[in-house]
């Protein structure tokens, strides 16, 4: 059956479900056998033509992984994961020898991205946004490369950076998230496949949004994204990632490590719109999303801002954090997490204040519907040298229906009497009278919920880059379809 036909058929059989990215693409894959062992790690490294030091780094991480227990702190019901029953590497055959131009890429893969709204061909490229597209374990193409390199900006896949910028990768990879941090971090370090690498040189303000679009396609395959962003002194970059996957009955694993480093006066703005397949209404299938994201504000006056819209995945386990080392550095975390049906999310942030006059801001909006559970878990840690540190935290939860749960678990540890920490939290149910009011003005019940929830999330959504804010608003509404009767 031709791939397009197959795709159309699959889309048509989606039936009652509303997940519009649920199609899969039929391509011939290179995929070693299932299982996690040193051989597979060597295979991955060989496939990527990696230097010896990279392979050693991976093998060391695998040793660490074997010693670490699975993290247990989250309020999540995570089924036992059989790491031996999973594929760790899958790339479309046609991408084996990295295509030199888009003309050499399998048209089916290009079509996939077009369907996802991410055209890669020059004449259709999104204006103002440079995209790196990752398909299963490999980067397909990166747009605007030439224009960026004229400014000295490096934007490429991490696999490429290992070869072209080994000094930067060696220096920074694993410097923010140590291999031994926890078992998912170690696993990722051992088997990471692809992701983006960004270096912004001193004094450069990146003129376009840099973006990666992650797509899981192959069945039973884990995706181990590794992203590293370095903003040198006085530089600025805004980065956005999007994620989707086909609808499958089996659970799939996505364990990502993302490291950010901001030097003196540099600013990194990192936005995520996560829309992995969430599973069906009964909780069958969906992505397990175990993500470690951490940014180090190493330089003075540096700033890292995380914005995330988490609507997909069966399980989300994610705490984008900031280590505020430089004096006067700033960390921000803006989050919308929506769980519907049987989804579970345990997400939040850690703000570690080390330098003087460091400040952090946390705005978290959790929305639960159906039988879903949604937990905010956060740590604000002010160390003794962090004189005049400031934190403001606001956690709001909204419940739709009476079978869902919202939980807030804020930890505050302060070892400094000059510091000031504020925490506000609210939990509310969606108000029937508000819904009635909107419906009396002609909105149907789903539009009314979408409008009210978008209002609830506004403080977070307004931090997304303009181009994506509208999409995110639609996504918020779609994620809650069917949540009111």
């Amino acid at each position, binding site marked *: 059956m031709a791939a397009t036909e197959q795709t159309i058929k699959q889309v048509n059989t989606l039936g009652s479900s509303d997940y519009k990215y649920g199609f899969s693409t039929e391509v011939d894959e290179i995929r070693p056998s299932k299982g996690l062992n040193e051989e597979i790690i060597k295979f991955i490294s060989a496939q990527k033509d990696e230097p010896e030091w990279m392979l050693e780094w991976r093998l060391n991480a695998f040793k660490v992984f074997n010693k670490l227990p699975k993290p247990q702190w989250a309020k999540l019901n995570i089924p036992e994961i059989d790491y031996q029953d999973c594929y760790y590497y899958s790339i479309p055959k046609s991408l084996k020898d990295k295509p030199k131009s888009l003309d050499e890429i399998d048209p089916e893969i290009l079509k996939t991205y077009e369907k996802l709204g991410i055209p890669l061909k020059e004449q259709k490229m999104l204006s103002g946004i440079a995209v790196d597209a990752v398909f299963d374990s490999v980067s397909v193409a990166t747009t605007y490369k030439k224009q960026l390199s004229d400014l000295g900006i490096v934007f490429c896949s991490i696999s490429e950076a290992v070869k072209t910028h080994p000094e930067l990768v060696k220096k920074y990879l694993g410097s923010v998230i140590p291999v031994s941090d926890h078992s998912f971090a170690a696993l990722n370090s051992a088997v990471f496949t692809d992701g983006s690498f960004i270096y912004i040189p001193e004094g450069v303000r990146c003129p376009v949004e840099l973006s990666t679009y992650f797509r899981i396609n192959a069945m039973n395959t884990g995706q181990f994204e590794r992203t590293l962003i370095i903003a040198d002194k006085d530089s600025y970059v805004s980065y956005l990632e999007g994620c989707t996957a086909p609808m499958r009955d089996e659970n799939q694993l996505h364990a990502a490590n993302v490291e950010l480093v901001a030097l003196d006066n540099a600013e990194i703005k990192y936005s995520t719109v996560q829309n992995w397949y969430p599973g069906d209404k009964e909780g069958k299938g969906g992505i397990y999303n175990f993500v470690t994201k951490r940014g180090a504000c190493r330089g003075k006056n540096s700033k890292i801002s995380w914005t995330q819209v988490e609507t997909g995945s069966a399980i989300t386990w994610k705490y984008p954090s900031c280590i505020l080392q430089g004096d006067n550095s700033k960390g921000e975390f803006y989050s919308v997490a929506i769980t519907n049906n049987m989804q579970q999310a345990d997400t939040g942030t850690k703000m570690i204040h080390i330098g003087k006059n460091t400040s952090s801001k946390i705005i978290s909006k959790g929305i639960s519907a159906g039988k879903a559970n949604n937990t905010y878990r956060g740590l604000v840690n002010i160390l003794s040298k962090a004189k005049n540190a400031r934190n403001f935290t606001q956690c709001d939860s909204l419940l739709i229906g009476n079978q869902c749960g919202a939980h807030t678990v804020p930890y505050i540890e302060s070892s400094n009497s000059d510091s000031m920490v504020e925490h506000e939290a609210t939990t509310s149910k969606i*108000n029937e*009278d*508000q819904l*009635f*009011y*909107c*419906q*009396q*003005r*002609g*909105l*149907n*019940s789903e*539009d009314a919920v979408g*409008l*009210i929830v*978008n*209002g*609830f*999330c*506004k*403080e977070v959504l307004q931090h997304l880059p303009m181009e994506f804010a509208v999409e995110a608003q639609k996504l918020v509404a779609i994620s809650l379809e069917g949540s009111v009767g």
Partner: protein
Amino acid sequence: MLEIKNLHVSIEEKKIIKGLDLSINKGEVHALMGPNGSGKSTLSYVLSGKDKYEINDGTIDYNGKNLLELDVDERANEGLFLAFQYPMEIPGVQTSFFLKTAINSKRKYLGQSEMDALEFAKLMKSKAEELNISTEMLKRDLNVNYSGGEKKKQEILQMSMLSPKMAILDETDSGLDIDALRIVSEGVNKLRNNDNSFLVITHYQRLLNYIKPDFVHIIADGKIVKSGDYSLALELEEKGYEEISQTA
């Protein structure tokens, strides 16, 4: 336009409306007056379709349709508008955005294309000016931190932008000072024409000095006990509900 026959309504087993008949024709303004707890607001909620009210008996015909079979949003898009006694606050939703969403919901229902941004902005500006509503207010979140008077003006703005066939004003005069009352009433009067109808629910005759009704009905204990023309409102003001209800 609207034909209510022998309506019986209860909420949580408590009977609120007990055999109400009311007929409103095109182009007419009816005032419904009555003491607290007489069933005035219940009637407005039943007409607009709020759940939790149980219809035990009776029929409501709206332009040839069985109103009770329509969903809340269908009734709204068929031109039935309720100006709320207590308009809801919607945090994070800009007033102008809400207005646009409402207008486009109706257009979609009627199979029309969305109103373009420029046309919408012009319409909103002219209607807001008529009601002395500043453009600054339209940028704020809907009804959030609005004064009581501002909320009521906002209701009338929404009404004039949606130009309903059948508008129900539920105690729109409560909480209004005399200037706001005049502005709101003028807004309503501008909308009056031969094709639309109004049901004005109020405690006081005061509002009816500004919005002159064609008919006045007095409701007590879930029934209309007396109907007449404008002079009935004056008589009521003089004698009070108790005396009027007894003589009925």
